[in-house]
């Protein structure tokens, strides 16, 4: 795998540029020298949080709407793993993260560096998560929710696949359940006042944000 130039713009911690929300301060929070500025991950190391945040942003990148990093999904993701995950799921996540890191040349090279080669990671994420027909995807899901295989090579695939599937699921919940997406991009109506059962979709636009 050839080395690529690290993208300096995404090297700053978890890279959140959100304003006006409880997530303020996440921007530079992962650097040890900026601990006082705000959020710190509870479960992940700052460096791993930075990596997971990058993966989330590859799964849900910025388009005309914000990307995963823009809304600070890592705060929710880290909290979920730390507090809500069962012990066995935590262990599975940690094992998969370790295997994933092993595959990244740019990450292995300097254990103190926050520079992440996004293109390199994108290739790995695509390889494991992005190239399936729906049928193959069903098999993939069967694998990641099943028991770990005995075969070592299969185990690596299982571990990384399970890890990336968790990151995808957490990213989606974190992103669409965030205040920014919920109030500014989805259709937000906290007090509907009535129920109308069959109206033109064009009257509403995007999905309702509150379920």
């Amino acid at each position, binding site marked *: 795998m050839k080395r690529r130039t690290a993208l300096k713009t995404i090297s700053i911690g978890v890279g959140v540029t959100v304003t006006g929300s409880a997530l303020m301060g996440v921007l530079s929070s992962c650097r040890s020298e900026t601990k006082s500025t705000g959020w710190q991950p509870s479960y992940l190391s700052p460096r791993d949080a930075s990596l997971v945040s990058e993966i989330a942003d590859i799964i849900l990148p910025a388009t005309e709407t914000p990307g995963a990093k823009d809304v600070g999904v890592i705060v929710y993701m880290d909290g979920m793993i730390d507090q809500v995950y069962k012990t066995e799921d935590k262990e599975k996540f940690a094992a998969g993260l370790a295997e994933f890191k092993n595959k990244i040349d740019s990450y292995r090279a300097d254990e103190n560096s926050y520079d992440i080669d996004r293109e390199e990671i994108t290739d790995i994420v695509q390889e494991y998560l992005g190239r399936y027909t729906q049928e193959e995807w069903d098999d993939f899901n069967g694998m990641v929710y099943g028991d770990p295989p005995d075969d070592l090579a299969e185990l690596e695939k299982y571990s990384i696949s399970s890890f990336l599937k968790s990151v995808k699921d957490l990213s989606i919940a974190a992103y669409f359940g965030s205040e920014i997406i919920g109030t500014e991009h989805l259709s937000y109506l906290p007090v509907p006042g009535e129920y109308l059962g069959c109206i033109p979709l064009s*009257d509403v636009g995007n*999905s309702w944000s509150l379920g």
Partner: protein
Amino acid sequence: MPIFDDNSPTLYDAIVVGTGISGGWAAKELCEKGLKTLVLERGRNVKHIVDYKTASLDPWDFENQGRQAEAVLERDYPKQRRTGYTVAKEHVHWFVKDSEHPYDEVDGSRFDWIRGYHVGGRSLVWGRQSYRWSPMDFEANAKDGVGTPWPIKYEDLAPWYDHVETFAGISGQAENLPQLPDSKFLPPMQMNCVEEEMKKGIESNFSNRHVTMGRVAHLTGDVKGKFGDRGNCQFRNRCMRGCPYGGYFSSNAATLPAAEATGNMTLRPSSVVFEVIYDKDSKRATGVRIIDAETKKTYEFTSKIVFLNASAINSTWIMMNSKSDAYPEGLGNESGELGHNIMDHHFQVGAYGKYDGYNDRYYKGRRPNGIYVPRFQNIDAASKQDFLRGYGYQGGAGREAWGRGIAEAAIGGAFKDSLFAPGQWNGGIMAFGEILPNHDNKMTLNYDKLDSWGLPTVTFDCNMGENEMAMRADMATQAAEMLEASGFKDVGTYDNSYGIGLGIHEMGTARMGSSSKNSVLNKWNQVHSCKNVFVTDGACMTSAACQNPSLTYMALTARAADYAVSELKKQNL
């Protein structure tokens, strides 16, 4: 609320134990009929609106979007978590911690005892589905030779259904079905496009099957001033947090304020009633003993009548713990049925599917309600099955939201952008079925394992029977057939893990019947042999039917309160 203090009297006309659905009604009816009434609640006080702290919070306002920490669940809610939903942060404060209120299950059996100890009890968190029982429900035990016959008929209760519905406010559609009598209705909520298709599909393909809008205790239509300070349902679907609009019926929003308005009610929270005091000379109860949940001091209160409305299990627990020379096995337990015949509604079985079409249609509002398929099995000769009794379905349809992305095989910008639009329509129906009374399904008191107040804990021994299991198979099959007939695709069925109690409709442990040989209570909900004690919560139920039971508890309570006051006036109590 007038709260008990050091200057309050210890002598009352009536004592009501519990402030949930039925206790609130007992308090209202007795106070309105002029009785000085002490209302005892084992939990903390809850002020209407003021104490609904989470009522207007959005998902992102909660840590982890409201998902409860695993360590907290393992430590405090190992049994309450079985529902999956009660432990969410938005309303977990309305449910007890198992760590503070433990109970046990006999090896190999399961009973899900989901409780809320506070003023208002589970009336704050109930499902609000409100259906009358039918004449056939009250006749079923006698006809089938199961359990013991009901000592009342539908006609005995019908005027009391009218009475409670008019005050509570029940939204629904009249259908004129013999198996599901109509209530005094406020306007029904709307069905959505695909639910209308379900209605058409089911009603045109199956004789005697109907789809109606769910009947719920929510205020709809022009209600101004007719329900006191309560306002219309705002379609926020955040009911379980407590409603700041008073849009649904709860003790806190409706019955307790009415009781308070009479000036006759004294409310005492933190009052764990552990005994009904029995006087063998007069053969009457003279009052109750309580332990203060906070100070752990004990007190005695005296009254002419006692209403037990502590919930099926806890009212029974009080009676079982009220041992005396006359009642060594617990108050009113000559029959040996006290604590037995635990019933619930078994559910978590049904079908789901996708619906193609209506891609340009959507809905507005978060309707706290669904559609209802009234019982259609064993209602006449043509619908006779190889199991007894029947079931109804609750269900609905809606459009997929962004959560569908988790199941899709894609990542990236286009994938993300596609998830902003609503997905395809899907829907489903879930059955709620009758459980037969079975003497073997029981609770016992464990004096070897005491709680923090030094009181015996409960051990349950409850198991599903053959009739219920046969019914479940039919519930899944019929659900799938009805969805397919309505044009649904990719129809699947499910039969998830269910334990008795999960429906939170526990009932039957101090049943009504014809005599003290077969039951604990008579046709007026009086303890057969101790006539100034009335039990009008789920404990009194002789059979379970398949309808959600709270409306029937309300009607039975109002009826019993009316009788109790008339008997008091005649000096019969």
